[in-house]
């Protein structure tokens, strides 16, 4: 068999590596800033573009898609060529992939601070960027599969399986979750509404963690760990079980992000059951990684790369144990919406993703530049500063989360809330926010030490653009002789792709289809009506400012929450016109689903202009610009038409008279503000936002006379500030209310 000589392309690896480092630093800097904003709200600078609600999506997008994304591509482009003994299929496609991805990041960095967002977590980018992501992802796919097809190694190593599953899963998730109805180039509405939107979003959100932050990194682990340790993976068989069970199980677990919400109960239970099962493959993978170092633990002492890998894999194990625990309803009741979740994801993000990326960079850069690492001491220093950073970051947030979660639920001896003022539970944990920011600072300093070390390494070396390699060509004739049936899968990337897709679709269909097709999963409530034109505009402002980043709209069926938020728990039928859903996932501030009518318009006005003046100690950014900016009315009709097209029952006459209807409602609010000695024009944005806030959760209160009363569920004396007593349940069944 003739031996062929060919060259590995290192230039594309270098490009993605550079981008990893640059965007890592940028993403961490933004993270540090927003961490500090929670402790020192003045750092929102009173500017709309730098407020927490707009920068938080920038941070998550920068870290997930720019830092981790580029690190994935760096590792894939390096390992794929070598595992397949082939140069990448096309240099041009590689370059289109690289520059396209960076342009998408640039677009995100511009649009997110400007408030252009779909409002869906980790999928905030607007529809033109979504299309660009799809195209670039296809380019990446063609380049990857093209390389696989022209390979010189018959068998696909397990790392490549992980890459293939990543590619198909992300394509599926991105397309399904990004179904949007465009209103303008920078504005769209999710095609799904309420419960269905929530289910699709968290099917996406959970599996973005699974297939963007986990499976590709596991692929990298299965390549770079054996490389760095210079020994094969502990058990190749286990890695196969790890792969197939992860692909099969992960997709089902999304509903654990929606426990105790209005999602149908069966879907919640399904999510929990699969989350528990996920411990097995995740820990199988962790053990496989750690045991690869059996007999080589002494080398961990000297080799910083291995140190980073060991902590990364341990963090993977901790996060994947914690995840299933958090999906237990009793744990979730306390942890959900608190900083516990933030700590959890950062153990994964800082520990698993960050440390894997650092380890790979320390391993790759000296090899690409044909030299030794400039300073092992500095790399070790980075390791320790980073590890300390993770601990200082996570521990205070665990404490903050548990403290706040318990404070929300604490009753006094006479059955009232011990801490009826939400703010009390915030000021209690502000010191923890300060410590967390310190942890983040440590982590960032560590990363800067790495940058210095890598720059010095690069300076002393010479970059190897084209790496010479030799391998015999693949002989197809011999391939099928005596092949076992399992090799049928292993040798054929397309079969692998299809089988992965089938496994992903099984869970997807079982979860999504019944919620879409069966009416009893989302019971309708006759008194729930679409938003008025002004309220719809206000809702868009709520979305633009990222209010949903810190405020939930989901009163869970706990007595403590019904008391605190002055009303009933949230029902599925209340969200049928919510494109997109705005349930949120974190309560840095209180829930707003029953905020309508709770305070006067003037209270909202003053609170939005300067939160601290109304609520001393509040950490909410000021939204004074809302009282300065004129409400953009140019899209009102288009927005209503879009909603109508999606099935929201707006009449043609309402749409025709939208401007007048909007103006009339705005004038009413302006008049009420004037009574409270607030002079403003009815054309300001703040009027629309107040209209929306005052509408929230009020429809259900317009129900006819009670059919079923729930005397035991709501204490006789509700909070003094509650304007109306809790309305009767919309559904005839008596729900189980937990404490």
């Amino acid at each position, binding site marked *: 068999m003739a031996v062929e000589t060919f060259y590995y392309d290192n230039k594309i690896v270098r490009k993605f590596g550079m981008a990893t480092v640059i965007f890592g630093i940028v993403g961490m800097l933004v993270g540090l800033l927003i961490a500090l904003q929670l402790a020192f709200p003045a750092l929102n600078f009173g500017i709309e573009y730098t407020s927490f609600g707009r920068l938080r999506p920038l941070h998550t997008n920068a870290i997930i898609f720019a830092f981790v994304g580029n690190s994935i591509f760096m590792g894939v482009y390096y*390992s794929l060529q*070598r*595992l397949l003994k082939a140069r990448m299929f096309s240099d041009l496609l590689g370059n289109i992939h690289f520059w396209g991805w960076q342009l998408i990041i640039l677009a995100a960095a511009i649009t997110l601070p400007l408030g252009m967002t779909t409002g869906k977590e980790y999928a905030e980018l607007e529809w033109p960027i979504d299309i660009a992501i799809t195209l670039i992802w296809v380019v990446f796919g063609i380049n990857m599969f093209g390389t696989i097809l022209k390979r010189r*190694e018959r*068998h696909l*190593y*397990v*790392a490549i399986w992980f890459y293939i599953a990543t590619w198909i899963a992300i394509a599926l998730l991105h397309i399904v979750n990004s179904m949007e109805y465009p209103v303008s180039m920078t504005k769209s509405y999710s*095609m*799904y*509404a309420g419960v*269905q939107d929530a289910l699709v979003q968290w099917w996406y959100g959970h599996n973005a963690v699974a297939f963007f932050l986990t499976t590709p990194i596991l692929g990298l682990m*299965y*390549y*770079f760990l*054996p*490389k760095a340790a*210079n*020994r*094969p*993976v502990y058990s*190749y*068989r286990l890695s*196969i*079980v790890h792969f*197939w*069970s992860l692909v*099969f199980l992960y997709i089902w677990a999304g509903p654990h992000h929606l426990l105790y919400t209005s999602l149908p109960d069966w879907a919640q239970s399904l999510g929990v059951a699969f989350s528990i099962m996920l411990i097995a493959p995740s820990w199988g993978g962790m053990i496989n990684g750690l045991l690869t170092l059996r*007999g*080589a633990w*002494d*080398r961990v002492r000297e080799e910083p790369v291995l140190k980073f890998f060991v902590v990364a894999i341990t963090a993977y194990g901790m996060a994947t144990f914690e995840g299933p625990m958090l999906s237990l309803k009793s744990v979730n009741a306390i942890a959900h919406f608190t900083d516990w979740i933030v700590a959890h994801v950062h153990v994964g993000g800082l520990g698993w993703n960050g440390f894997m990326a650092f380890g790979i960079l320390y391993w790759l850069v000296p090899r690409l530049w044909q030299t030794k690492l400039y300073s092992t001491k500095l790399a070790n220093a980075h390791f320790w500063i980073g590890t300390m950073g993770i601990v200082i970051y996570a521990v205070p947030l665990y404490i903050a989360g548990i403290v706040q979660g318990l404070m929300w639920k604490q009753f006094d001896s006479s059955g009232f809330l011990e801490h009826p003022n939400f703010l009390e539970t915030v000021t209690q944990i502000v010191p923890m926010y300060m410590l967390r920011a310190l942890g983040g600072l440590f982590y960032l300093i560590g990363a800067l030490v790495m940058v210095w070390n890598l720059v010095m390494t690069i300076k002393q070396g010479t970059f190897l653009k084209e790496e010479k390699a030799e391998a015999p060509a693949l002989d197809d004739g011999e391939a099928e002789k005596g092949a*076992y049936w*399992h090799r049928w899968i292993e040798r054929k990337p397309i079969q692998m792709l299809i089988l992965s897709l089938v496994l992903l679709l*099984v869970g997807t269909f*079982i979860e999504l289809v*019944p919620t*879409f*097709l*069966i*009416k*009893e999963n*989302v019971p309708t409530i006759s008194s729930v009506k679409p938003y008025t034109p002004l309220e719809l505009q206000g809702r868009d402002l709520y979305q633009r400012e990222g209010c949903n980043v810190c405020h939930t709209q989901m009163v869970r069926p706990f007595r403590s929450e019904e008391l605190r938020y002055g009303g009933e728990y949230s029902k599925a039928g209340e969200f*049928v016109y919510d494109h997109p859903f705005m349930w949120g996932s974190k309560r840095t501030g209180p829930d707003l689903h029953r905020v309508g009518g709770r305070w006067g318009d003037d209270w909202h006005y003053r609170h939005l202009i300067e939160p601290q003046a109304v609520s001393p100690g509040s950490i909410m950014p000021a939204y004074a610009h809302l009282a300065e900016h004129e409400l953009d009315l140019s899209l009102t009709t288009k927005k209503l038409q879009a909603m109508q*097209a*999606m*099935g*929201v029952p707006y009449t043609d006459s309402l749409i025709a008279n939208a401007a007048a209807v909007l103006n009339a409602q705005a004038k009413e609010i302006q008049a009420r503000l004037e009574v409270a000695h607030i002079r403003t024009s009815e054309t300001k944005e703040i009027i629309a936002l107040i209209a929306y806030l005052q509408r929230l959760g009020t429809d259900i209160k317009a129900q006819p006379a009670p059919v079923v009363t729930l005397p035991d569920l709501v204490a006789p004396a509700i909070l003094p500030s509650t304007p109306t007593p809790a309305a009767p349940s919309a559904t005839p069944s008596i729900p189980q209310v937990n404490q």
Partner: protein
Amino acid sequence: MRYVKHFFENIAGIEIYPMISLLIFFFFFLALGFYVLKMRKAHVQYMAASPLDLDRHEEEQHAPQAPQS
């Protein structure tokens, strides 16, 4: 919700779904276990050595030797 319609009030015979799910699971993992256990040792060792720059020959049952440290 024009794009998202509810076609049924409820599903008849929903009870069978959990049973089907259990069976899918059981057989999936049974097949996976079978698949893994049936792999030839030489092949497993050959695959495991993929990331390492060794001269690999599956037919000779060449197992990569961990370097002595």
